[in-house]
C-alpha cells in the first residue's frame, strides 16, 4: 500500500496575536509548523503502514523552508518526502494549488503507484478545505472528506467513518481514493528516536516546475488563480453597547433589572 500525504507549512495561529487596538497582526517570532490536521494524516498513514505494510510518502508545496514540515513527517514515520518549490507556484489559490500538487502526484505515481492520498481536513491559515477535493477531481479518484476513522482496509477498498453535522456516515470506497482527515482520528505519538535521527539529516526530493511533466503554466500560481483579494476593511461596527457602571455588585444589579424588564429571564433554566 502506497499512501501519499499532502502536508502544508503554516504559521502557528495559536501564537499569532492580533493587537485589538491597531487591528494588526503581531508577526514577531511566529513559528512555522506543520498544519496540525496534516500531522494527524501522516500519523494515520503510518498506522496503516504498520498494519498493512507499504510505504508512506509526503508531498509539500512551498518555499525551501517548507522542508521543515517534511522532516517533521519523517519524524512521525513517513518514509520519503517530496517538495515542489518554484517561483511559478507562488500566489496560488486553491484551484492553482490543487493543480500543482496533482502534477507532482502524477509524477510520483509513475514510479510508485498510489493507493491513497491523504490531506488534512483544512489548513489552519486559510481554513478552506478545498484543495483535497480539488486534487481528487483532477486525478479522477473519489474524494471522501472529514474522515474520523478508517475502519477497514483491503487491497481493493477502504471503509471509512465520515463526520457529518449530526452524526456519521459509514462509507466504502474503491482504491485509489483521496481522504481528508479530522483531528480526532488519532493522537500524534511521540516520535521514536531512530525517526528523529533520520529526520535530522533528511533531504527531500525537490522538484521545480521543470521537473514536472505536461504542465500548463497558465494554471499555476497567481496566473492560475481565479480568486483575488479585492479590498480589506475593518469589520462593520455594531451600534455597540450600553455600559453598566459602578461596583461589580451594582453592575450586576442593573443587569438583573434589565433582564427582568425585558423578560429575558424566561430563557433561563429551560434546560
Amino acid at each position, binding site marked *: 500500500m502506497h499512501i501519499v500525504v499532502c502536508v502544508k507549512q503554516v504559521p502557528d495561529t495559536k501564537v499569532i496575536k492580533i493587537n485589538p487596538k491597531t487591528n494588526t497582526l503581531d508577526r514577531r517570532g511566529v513559528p512555522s509548523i506543520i498544519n496540525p490536521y496534516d500531522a494527524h494524516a501522516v500519523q494515520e498513514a503510518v498506522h496503516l503502514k504498520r498494519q498493512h505494510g507499504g510505504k508512506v510518502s509526503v508531498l509539500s508545496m512551498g518555499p525551501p523552508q517548507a522542508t521543515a514540515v517534511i522532516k517533521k513527517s519523517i519524524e512521525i514515520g513517513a518514509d520519503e518526502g517530496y517538495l515542489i518549490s518554484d517561483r511559478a507556484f507562488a500566489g496560488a489559490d486553491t484551484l492553482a494549488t490543487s493543480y500543482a500538487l496533482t502534477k507532482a502526484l502524477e509524477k510520483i505515481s509513475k514510479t510508485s503507484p498510489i493507493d491513497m492520498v491523504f490531506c488534512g481536513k483544512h489548513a489552519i491559515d486559510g481554513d478552506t478545505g478545498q484543495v483535497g477535493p480539488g486534487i481528487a477531481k483532477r486525478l479522477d479518484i473519489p474524494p471522501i472528506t472529514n474522515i474520523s476513522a478508517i475502519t477497514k482496509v483491503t487491497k481493493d477498498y477502504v471503509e471509512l467513518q465520515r463526520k457529518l453535522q449530526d452524526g456519521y456516515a459509514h462509507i466504502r470506497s474503491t482504491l485509489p481514493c483521496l481522504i481528508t482527515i479530522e483531528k480526532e482520528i488519532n493522537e500524534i505519538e511521540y516520535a521514536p528516536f531512530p525517526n528523529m535521527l533520520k529526520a535530522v539529516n533528511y533531504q527531500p526530493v525537490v522538484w521545480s516546475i521543470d521537473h514536472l511533466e505536461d504542465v500548463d503554466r497558465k494554471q499555476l500560481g497567481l496566473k492560475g488563480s*481565479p480568486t483575488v483579494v479585492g479590498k480589506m*476593511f475593518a469589520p462593520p461596527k455594531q451600534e455597540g453597547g450600553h455600559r453598566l457602571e459602578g461596583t461589580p455588585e451594582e453592575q450586576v444589579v442593573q443587569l438583573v433589572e434589565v433582564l427582568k424588564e425585558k423578560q429575558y429571564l424566561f430563557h433561563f433554566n429551560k434546560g
Partner: protein
Amino acid sequence: MSEEHRGIWVFAEVIDGAIAGVSLELLGAGRELADKLDVPLAGVLLGENITHLSEQLIPYGADEVYIIDDPVLKDYRTEPFLAGMGKLARMYVPEIILYGATPNGKDIASAIATDLKTGLTADCTMLGVDIENRLLEASRPAFGGNIMATILCKKHRPQMATVRPKVMKALQPDPARKGMVLKEKLEMKEAEIRTKVLEIIKGPGKSVDLEGADVIVCGGKGMGDEQAFQLIHQLADTIGASVGGTRDAVEARWISHDHQVGQTGETVTPKIYFAIGVSGAIQHTVGMKNSELIIAINKDPDAPIFDVATYGIVGDARETVPVMIKAFEELLRENEVISHA
C-alpha cells in the same frame, strides 16, 4: 466567461428529508443579490424523492427550482452530486452559485470549482455585489488580523462561495409566491459510482448542542486559568445555559473544541450570549454577533467585544461572575416562589 452566464443559484442541501436551514438563509441572501442584478434566483435540489421539497424553496425566495431526483442521489456522495451539479451548471450557466459551509456543502463546492475551473471563496460571512461589473463580493474574516477581506472572481464563471450557517437571514416564507420547476435526469448507474454509503448514524456526532441553545455562557482566555474557568460552568449551570469557549480557551485546554464559538467553531444565535473574558476578535465575533442579547464582561474598557455587546460590564470577571451567580440564584428562587404561589 461569457455574457451567457445569468442567474443566481443556491445549492439546496437536504438534511433528514427537509431543506437545511442554511439553504433557506442563502435564498434570503441570494434574493437580494438577484434583485440587484435583475436575474432569477434558483434553488438546486438533488436527491431521491425530493421533488416535493421544491415547495419549500419557492416561498423562501426562489423563482426557479432545478431538480434531479434519482436513487443514486439518496445519500450525499461527491461523485453523483458532482455529476448532477456539473451537468446543470453546464446546461443553464448560472453566474453565481452559493453553498452552505457545511461538510457536504463544502465538499460539493470544492469539487465543482475544480470541475468548472472557477473560483471559490470559503466560509463567507458577508455577501455583496458590484452591479456594474456583475461581481460577487464574498467577504470573510482575513487570516491575519481583525479585518475582513473581500474575495473576487473576476474572469471565471460561475462565481462561487460557501457561506457560514446562521449569518444570513432567511425571508419570511410567502406561500403565495410562484415559481418554476425544471427537472433534469442524471445518466449515472449505481455500478459506476466508486463510493457506497453503508450506513448513516445520527448523533451523537456532536455532544454539545450550542446551535440549539437559548442561552450560552462563553469564557475566554481572560478567565486566567482552568480553575477560574469553572466559574463559567457554574454560571451556566445556574441559569441552564450551554458553555462556549474562545479558541484561546480551547487551546489552553480549559474546554474542548466542540465548545468553540467562531470562525473555526460554531456559529450561534442564542437569545442571550455571555462573553466573559473574551476580547472580541473578528474570528470570534463572526460566530456570535447575531445573538439577540449580548452581555460582555471584560476588564479592559477598550476591548472590541464591547462594540458588539448589548450590555457591557467593565471589571474583573473573577469578581463579577460569582456576584452574578448569586444574583441569578436568588432571582430564580424568587421566580419559583412566584410561579408556585
